[in-house]
């Protein structure tokens, strides 16, 4: 494990609604696992400006990501519906542990 905290970018269409939920659920889960991360929340339109592969390790999105960004993307609809959320959280954990 590297010393540097991983940086997660949470994305939804407005940057204030579903990404807020995805952020909350993810941070809660990672905290329980003892993993500290840094994070930013954004809307999908701003993604090309903020998604720098040098600084962002993982994108967690509730929308489609219509760009080729060279950053892994985890789809997080399950964090909103609760159905399959554990699997999604485990997938996020694998990227940032």
């Amino acid at each position, binding site marked *: 494990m590297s010393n540097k905290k991983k940086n997660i970018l949470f994305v939804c269409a407005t940057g204030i609604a579903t990404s807020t939920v995805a952020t909350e659920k993810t941070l809660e889960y990672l905290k329980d696992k003892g993993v500290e991360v840094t994070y930013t929340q954004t809307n*999908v339109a701003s993604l090309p400006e903020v998604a720098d592969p040098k600084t962002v390790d993982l994108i967690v999105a509730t929308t489609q990501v219509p760009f080729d960004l060279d950053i892994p993307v985890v789809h997080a609809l399950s964090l909103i519906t609760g159905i399959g959320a554990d699997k999604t959280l485990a997938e996020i954990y694998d990227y940032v542990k």
Partner: protein
Amino acid sequence: MAVNDNKIRFEKDQIVTFNEKTNFDNVINTLAKVLIKKDLVKPEYPQQVILREQKFPTGLPTNPFGVSIPHTDAKWTKHNAIAIGILKSPIEQVVMGSDETKIGVEIVFMLALDKSNKQLNILSKLMKIFQAPESLVKIRNSSKDEILKIVNKVILEEK
């Protein structure tokens, strides 16, 4: 008072039952009319919600039936609010984050969210309902007074 600005407005007239077959645009326009009259959203709000839904669908494949959470950019909202449409005849909506996967939606939770939602996280509170099939069924089948009680319980609750 500034404190009141952090509240989420949800009152009985913000619940509308659609007994006849309807469509997404009609549901949004009908619900938004109530919020516009109460000066909670801007006049452009319904059109913006409808446009956004085409690009970023908000159908959620919940159990035992689908729901949707149409909303739009904070700039069209004046005050955090929720409006609920109960659809006796389900409408088809595209699932969030998918291309064209469709689900039957029986409850529309239309959200007016301003920037303070980042702290308030209204959606996170409502999710307690989405994730409990018995709550969804109860809302679909209950009187407006009961719906008000169920929803207010989760949105007023401290985390």
